[in-house]
């Protein structure tokens, strides 16, 4: 149970290894209200913690669409190679990152940039997930716990960025750092294994090495990080900022 949402937890017959009093202590510490209905049944109402409340770490991306060009797909191929995704995109294979080209019909201005999971602070996929498989890490990365995913595809419907994919066929030759299998939803993991090793995601590294140096990865909440300084330097936006989901992926020049 995370404190991300207001939820009511009925604590019926104490389970093995579960200490209700300890749980209550946590709930109270989190500024919550608890009501004992009958002995053994307690309702907890937890306060809503807004994602933009500053945590020490929030990983994010900055994509400079003024540098990104239409012909380059270094980020996409790097993602596919590194995470063992299929290069052939069919309705039953996954796509974690894609290149999008948009044109303003009035001015004719054309921009090309990659779109992937936006790692929202108010992630809709997390909200709709019936099993708690979609979750948001304390460092802001939104992941699917495939052990819990039942493949209902609610998250695919809920995501306004169409970032989630459903794996509809048996997967072979997975990478040890990217377990994937039939019957689960998945999306960009921001290469969480690489990030934990202190490296940038595969797409960002590939963009710097072979692409147009249009992507910056870093901790949005560290004012000294490159990404935070660039965000403070020039105007950026997020896709569908009007939805108020507070994505972790920022774009320049769109």
């Amino acid at each position: 149970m995370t404190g991300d949402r207001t939820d009511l937890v009925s604590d019926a017959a104490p389970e093995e290894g579960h200490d209700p009093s300890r749980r209550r202590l946590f709930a109270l510490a989190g500024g919550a209200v608890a009501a004992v209905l009958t002995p053994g049944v307690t309702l907890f109402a937890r306060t809503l913690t807004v994602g933009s409340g500053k945590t020490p770490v929030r990983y994010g991306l900055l994509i400079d669409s003024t540098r990104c060009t239409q012909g380059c797909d270094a980020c996409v191929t790097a993602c596919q190679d590194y995470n063992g995704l299929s290069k052939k995109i069919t309705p039953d294979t996954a796509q974690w990152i894609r290149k999008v080209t948009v044109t303003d019909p009035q001015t004719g201005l054309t921009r090309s940039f990659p779109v992937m999971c936006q790692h929202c602070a108010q992630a809709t996929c997390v909200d709709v997930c019936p099993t708690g498989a979609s979750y948001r890490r304390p460092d802001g990365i939104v992941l699917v716990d495939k052990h819990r995913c039942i493949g209902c595809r609610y998250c695919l419907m809920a995501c306004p960025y169409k970032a989630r994919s459903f794996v509809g066929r048996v997967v072979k030759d997975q990478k040890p750092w990217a377990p994937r299998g039939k019957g689960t939803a998945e999306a960009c993991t921001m290469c969480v294994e690489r990030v934990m090793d202190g490296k940038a995601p595969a797409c960002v590294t590939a963009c710097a090495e072979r692409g147009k140096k249009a992507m910056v990865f870093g901790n949005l909440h560290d004012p000294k990080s490159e990404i935070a300084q660039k965000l403070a330097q020039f105007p950026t936006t997020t896709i569908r900022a009007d939805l108020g989901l507070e994505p972790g992926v920022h774009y320049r020049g769109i």
Partner: protein
Amino acid sequence: MKTRALVIAGLSVLIFFGAIWADHRGTVPVPLVPTAQGHCVLPTALMRREHMMLLRQVREQIVRDDKNDRTDRLTNCIACHVQTNSAGAPIPINQRGQFCAACHTYVGVHLDCFACHATVPQKAVSIANLMGTKGEQAAYSIPRVILQNAPASLSRGHS
């Protein structure tokens, strides 16, 4: 009278040899489990009985509790227990007779870890190598870490 005795005797002989035959047929040889290099996180007897609990516990800690420094994870189990073929390439751990499959076939317990998880270890490849053509063939390695932080006790039913 004589016929009845004969029938009973015949049946007894049939049952006797039938039982011997059935017993012989029913004996499945205990699998020869390939031995690993290095030391395990727990004594063998405990691992045989509790490894699924440990795997589940560690998986929850890594996936949900952000304890990414846990080294007693499935990928390291595979890296240590994998066998190589004559060409030096790792053999999938869930292949017939290999570490996981040998026991699971013997006890008739289906394991679905490898519907998602990689069956052979692989060294993390650098993105620069990935861009070349040879990056994918990067060899695997036995992890340097021999684990010390095994949990003191594994309680049954804990996940």
